[in-house]
Structure formats: C-alpha cells, structure tokens
C-alpha cells in the first residue's frame, strides 16, 4: 500500500511538470503579451505609450526572454521558494492573491461533493429497490433534467427568481460588510449563508449522473444469489440492503472522487463567473484575457494538482473499501 502511494506521488511530479508547461504554453499562445494588452488598454483611454517604455516594461517583466527561459525561471521559483511569480495586472506576488481564492474553490467543491453524495446515495438505492415505481420515474425524470440544464443557466434562473420574486441579490459568497474583513466567526456564518446556492447549483448535475450510476449498480447486485441467501436466512430487508448490496454498489461513489472533483472544479468556473463568486474562476478568466501569465499559470497548475490529488485519494479509498482491487 505504502509503495503504491509513494509510486503514485512520484508519478504526480512529471504530470505536474507536464501540466504546468502546457499551461504556460497555452497562456503564451495568443499573439502579443501582457504589455501589448496593457498598451492597448492605455491607448483606449487616450494615453500614448511609446515603444521605448513598452520595451522597458517587457524587460522588467522578463517578457523579452525566450519562453523556455521564462518557464524555467518560473518553475525554479515555485520549487525553491514557493514563489509563483508576479501578477502583472495586480502588481503583487501571485502567491498573495491565489490562496484564499483556491481555498474557497476547494470549500465549494467539497461541499458540493458532500451534498451530491448525501442526495444521490439514498435516491439511487430507492430507485433501484422500487424499480419502475412512481418515485423511480420521478427521480429518473429529475436526473435527466439535471443532466440537461447547463449549470450557468440554472444559476441565471435562480438569480432571476431571487431578484424578481424576492427582491434580493444572491451573488457573491459574502455580504458587503464581510467582504474585506478578516476571518471571524461572523464571516464564517456569513459564508455558510451564501454558500448553499452555488453548492446546490453545482450539485444538481453531478447528483443527477450519480443517481443513474447508483441505480444501475444496485440493479446489478440485487438479483445476485447472495442477496437471496441473506433474505432466506431471515435478515430484515433494511439490514440486508445496507449490509451487502449497497456496500458493493458503493464503489462508484468512491471512484467518483477522481472525476467528480475535477468536474466540480471545472463546473464551478462558469457558475462562479455568473454568480460573481470570489473563487479562483473569475480571476483565472480575467488573467487569461489579460495574458497575466504567471497568475493564470498558477491557477491552472493548482487546479490540476487538486485533480491529481483527488484521483489519488479515490484510488486509495477504493483499495481500502474493496479488497478485490489489487494495487500494483
């Protein structure tokens, strides 16, 4: 087991290098660089920047060097000093900007994951046990609807209802008075009061797909002989379900961490932009548009790292829960 974990962690290192290089190349792909964007912004407000000043800026930011040199310097900074470089747009070190936003992104994703499980597990089991009942049909319709509604549309509709029917805005994760405040109990409570809406929006589509998976797995397990045996021996239906078929049908739940976590983080991007959440997404989008490459690169790198860690966790849990799975 330990060997497996060690091997996987070691394997993550080249993956992260690959991802970070990819991110770097992607961000450099558009013609021009941050200075071009910057000069264009200034020009639109009628300020003229001469070529000399632009060249000086490039030199200061190190943009005049070849890409591979820039990349090597950036990675070296991260590995040796935990320094993710400087955000051109904010004129601040990237590490000062991203951590709180990454933490909120993670909170959002994990909360959605828990909500997804809490809803999908009982419904999936119910749908399988009461196959073709009215409840099963209702949940089936719900899950197909949930899969078909783009999350940003759901967010927009809920925002519309909140604004028109209840006259309140639901965007953001904090009330204005807490937005820039230091962390306190009050701010935590405020966060929880705002968190539920994005969590529900994010959880809808993943819940929908997980209900289908759980139902299908339970249906595979229920007709098996061991279930009949347990029933014949007089085990109560409830205990029987919880003790045998459900445990086996649970496997996909654990392996979902591997794809659910990246999906939730990915999915949260669009929702966060619509709802104006202070998570990584809106800042990532902004930095991509402005070619603020170290900031964007840091976000993409960290999101990928989270994804890789998520799949590692799910592999370990899967091995713990299901003894049939061998790790080599």
């Amino acid at each position, binding site marked *: 087991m330990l060997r497996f974990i060690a091997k996987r962690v070691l394997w993550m290192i080249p993956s992260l290098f690959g991802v970070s290089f990819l991110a770097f190349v992607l961000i450099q792909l558009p013609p021009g660089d941050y200075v071009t964007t910057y000069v264009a912004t200034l020009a639109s407000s009628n300020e003229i920047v001469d070529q000399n000043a632009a060249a000086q800026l490039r030199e200061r930011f190190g943009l005049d060097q070849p890409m591979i040199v820039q990349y090597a310097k950036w990675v070296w900074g991260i590995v040796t000093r935990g320094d993710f470089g400087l955000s051109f747009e904010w004129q601040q070190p990237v590490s000062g900007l991203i951590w709180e936003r990454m933490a909120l992104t993670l909170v959002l994703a994990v909360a959605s994951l828990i909500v997804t499980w809490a809803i999908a597990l009982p419904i999936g089991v119910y749908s399988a046990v009461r196959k073709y009942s009215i409840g099963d049909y209702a949940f089936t319709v719900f899950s197909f609807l949930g899969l078909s509604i783009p999350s940003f549309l759901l967010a927009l509709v809920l925002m519309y209802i909140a604004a028109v029917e209840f006259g309140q805005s639901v965007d953001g994760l904090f009330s204005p008075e807490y937005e820039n405040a230091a962390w306190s109990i009050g701010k935590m409570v405020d966060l929880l009061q705002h968190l539920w809406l994005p969590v529900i929006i994010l959880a809808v589509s993943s819940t929908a797909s997980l209900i289908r998976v759980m139902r299908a797995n339970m249906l595979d397990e229920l007709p098996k002989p061991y279930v009949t045996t347990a029933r014949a021996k007089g085990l109560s239906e409830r205990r029987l379900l919880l003790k045998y078929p459900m445990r086996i049908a649970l496997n996909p739940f654990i392996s979902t961490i591997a794809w659910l976590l990246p999906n939730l983080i*990915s999915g949260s991007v669009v929702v966060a932009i619509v709802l104006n959440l202070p998570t990584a997404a809106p800042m990532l989008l902004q930095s991509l548009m402005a070619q603020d490459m170290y900031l964007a690169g840091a976000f993409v790198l960290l999101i990928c790292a989270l994804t890789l860690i998520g*799949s590692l966790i799910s592999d370990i849990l899967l091995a713990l829960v299901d003894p049939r799975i061998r790790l080599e």
Partner: protein
Amino acid sequence: MSDATLVTEVSRDRVAVASQWQLIWWAFRRHKLAMIALFVTLALYIVALVPGFFAINDPVKQNARSTFHPPQVVHFVDRSEGWDFGLYFRPMKLSRDPETLAAIFKEDPAKKVPIRFFGRGYEYSVLGLFRTDIHLLASSDPKQPLYLFGADRLGRDVYSRVVQGAQVSLSIGLVGVSLSLFLGIVLGGISGYYGGRIDFVIQRVIEFVLALPTIPIWLALAAALPQNWPATLQYMMITIILSLTGWAQLARVVRGRFLSLRSEEFVAAARLDGVPERRIIFRHMLPSFASHIIASVTLAVPAMILAETSLSFLGLGLQPPTISWGVLLREAQNIRSIATAPWLFLPGGAVVLAVMALNLLGDGLRDAADPYNK
C-alpha cells in the same frame, strides 16, 4: 431483453436469424422514452439542416421599434364574429409610460393578422444550393412581424434566432465528436490491440488528458483565439478545442473493448487462419463493439453542446454575429435585461431540450446495444 419477451413481439425464428443491428433495433423500439427522444433529435437536426425554412423573420434583422417585444400568442379560433378557424395573431401596439418612458406593448384587439403556412418571407439559402423565400410559417402582413418568442435588445426575433442557432450548436456537437472519435479509435485501438510498451505510453497520455480540468483548459485555449477571426475558422478551432479533451474518454472505451475482444476465440481463429491484421481489426473486431461505441458517441454529443454553450456564454467561444445558442444566452447575462425580458431565457430551453433528447437517446441505445441487458 430476454428471448421470452422478444417472442411476444417477434416470432422466435425471426430472432434466431436476425442480425445484431436488427436485434438492437427491436430492443430499442421497446424503450418508449428513447423512441420519443429519437424523434425529437431527428426533428431538431432537420431544423438545423434548413433553419431558414423554419424561421419566421430574418434572424439578423434589427428593428428599433420592437426592442424587447414580448412573445405573441398564436390564436386558433376567432369568436369576435361567430366562429372563425385559422391561425392568426393580434399585433401589439407600442406606447410609452408617461413617467418612465418605458415601452409598453399591448395586444390590439381590433387588428388580426392571419398566419400562413408555406408563406413568403425573407430570402434564405437552402444548404447553399438554391435560394428561396418560402417559410413553414409566415405572417401574412410583412409590416406586422410575428414574434413567437419575443424580441431581444435590438428588436431581433428570438424564435428565428433560436432556430438559426440550432445549426451551429447542434453541428458543433457532431463535428467535435467525430474528431474525438477518430482520435479515440486510432489511439485506443492501437493501445488495446498491440498492448505492451505502446499501450503503457498511450495510457499515461490518456490519464494525463483526463486529469486536466477541462473548462480552465478550454478557457485558456479559447482565450488564445483572436476575436477577429472569420466565423468559420473560429467554429473549426472551437470544435478542435472541445475534442482535444473529449477523445481520451472514447479512447479508454475502445481500448477496453479491444483488450477483452483480443482474447476471444474468433479473433485467435482469424489470426491462425492468417487473416491480415487490418482485416482482423476492421472486419472482425470493430463490428463487435460498434454498437457500444455508437452509444458512447451519442452520450458525448450533448456534453459537447453544453461545452460550446458555456464557452460562448462566457464570451470565449463563438462570437456574434455568429448565431449559436450560447451566443444567444449571452443576451440573458445581466439581471437587468432578463428582468425586463424573461423570454431571453428561451434559447436555454432549446439547449435543455436538445441535450435531454440526446441523453435519453444515448441511454436507450446503450441499453439496447447491451446483449446481456435484461
């Protein structure tokens, strides 16, 4: 489905000689919801093929007088002078609120404009082959346009725009999936058929691609596209971007199937008979899992449609004047315009309908294609 249930519908000897595709079709036909989904999907793609015919007004024509014109109701029976049957609508009159100057649209009970089937409207091109001006529905008075889904900020007809947008949004799913299918089959096939070192390398690549958070990568790639590119080039690039991450999933499925089929006796027999490798793959192995692949592909199309919609909604996908459902939903982006014109959500309804139909269709196909399904 078991043989016993099949017999009720088809006689036993017909089952015995039926081809695999025949069996799949019989199993599929019994799935009511999937059949409905099939018809909805076909209908949507027919609309996407000739959007001009189904549109009512020119989707790009602006009209300052009908800014945020509300949707109009189509009546069937006119009771004002006895009983009069036939589709018609009552044009709306524009007045201004004396204080706020906000536009107020009111139905004019005195006027009545009949709706014609196969009437004439704006001129459009059919698949680039010929031009015509015949539409399925047309207002009989060209001065009184019919706004079935209302009008947007610039007074453009939302219904006609949704119909026009179907072309881009629905085809992007198909084209993107074909691209990822090509990559997936080639790489997954090589990986699964040859195994060994090449399998190891391709597997690591697939794992790597699957570990990438799709939307941030799409954002980065899409942000790299110059906004002033011609529409067709943009369209091609967006589809390529979407399929770059989509192929890995399919490659995995193909590889798994190849691995399990490779040890089947009929493949060993073919090999011992000296059948060339290409023929083994394409003649013997591919047909065995084609049905499964088709189901996976059908399930991948709606994901692509959602992806295009999200990207265009964020302003990183297709750019106006190209009309796609995502571009249309950008109009619904700020709370103020949807508060005045909630019908701007209607393109979202089209997205939900298409994605749901394709999902149900794919689900039904998967069940029907599974020979062990009871």
